[in-house]
């Protein structure tokens, strides 16, 4: 019980992630087989569809855009401000902030992470930026993965239409790849902009993503 209470947020999202992924696999399979029948081609099994480039591309192109969103969000909010937003820092905190406020080196607490206690050097630098580095790694991992799976799927379509297949390198310059990437990016960037501006005037009682209900509209960086 304590495990569930301590980890409710990550368990809840992990659960709906798996449920959505399974739902996507069944819906995608249905769609894939309907098209196969239209083209007088053989249908595929569930497992064959799950291990297809078509399914992989659909999954990874959404993953990459989420990781890109977080990478840019984490980085941009270091320097850029939105007055009144719960998602922004105040003007005096703009930038990487002092060692004192970041509890680094001599300012670290007894229970601070080991690498935060270091007085400088590469390993501390790495830890100072570990969140954005991890997100960047996940972004490029899924984006390159998308390029491989969507490239295969694109070539399957080309062959179906008796058109020549293209190389992986050529696919990076193909409008299909950029259409799939940008259609996901735009929605993520809209979501961030909306979050930054909506939280100036709107509230959700009890949520750490919101200012307290009674916080004034010009209060910046306050959250529950």
């Amino acid at each position, binding site marked *: 019980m*304590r495990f569930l209470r301590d980890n409710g947020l990550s368990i809840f999202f992990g659960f709906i992630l798996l449920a959505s992924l399974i739902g996507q696999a069944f819906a995608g399979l249905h769609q894939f087989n309907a098209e196969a029948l239209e083209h007088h081609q053989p249908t595929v099994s569930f497992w064959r569809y799950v291990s297809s*480039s078509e399914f992989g591309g659909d999954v990874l192109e959404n993953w990459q855009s989420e990781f890109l969103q977080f990478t840019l969000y984490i980085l941009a909010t270091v320097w850029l401000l939105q007055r009144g937003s719960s998602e922004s820092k105040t003007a005096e905190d703009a930038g990487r902030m002092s060692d004192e406020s970041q509890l680094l080196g001599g300012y670290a607490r007894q229970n601070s992470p080991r690498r935060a206690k270091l007085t400088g050097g590469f390993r501390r630098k790495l830890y100072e930026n570990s969140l954005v580095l991890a997100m960047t790694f996940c972004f490029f991992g899924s984006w390159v993965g998308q390029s491989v799976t969507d490239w295969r799927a694109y070539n399957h379509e080309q062959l179906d239409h008796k058109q020549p297949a293209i190389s992986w390198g050529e696919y990076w310059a193909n409008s299909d790849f950029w259409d799939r990437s940008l259609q996901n990016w735009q929605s993520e960037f809209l979501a961030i902009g909306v979050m930054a501006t909506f939280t100036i005037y709107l509230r959700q009682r009890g949520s750490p993503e919101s200012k307290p209900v009674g916080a004034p509209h010009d209060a910046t960086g306050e959250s529950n």
Partner: protein
Amino acid sequence: MRFYRLRSVRAMFITYWIFILAGFVFFFTVGILDR
């Protein structure tokens, strides 16, 4: 007790990492093999 609770949150952190990395390995393999 404190140690147990730290272990449980670390388990969630590691679970998410494993899920992402397994996803990368699986779909890269799919992409490379699915000619």
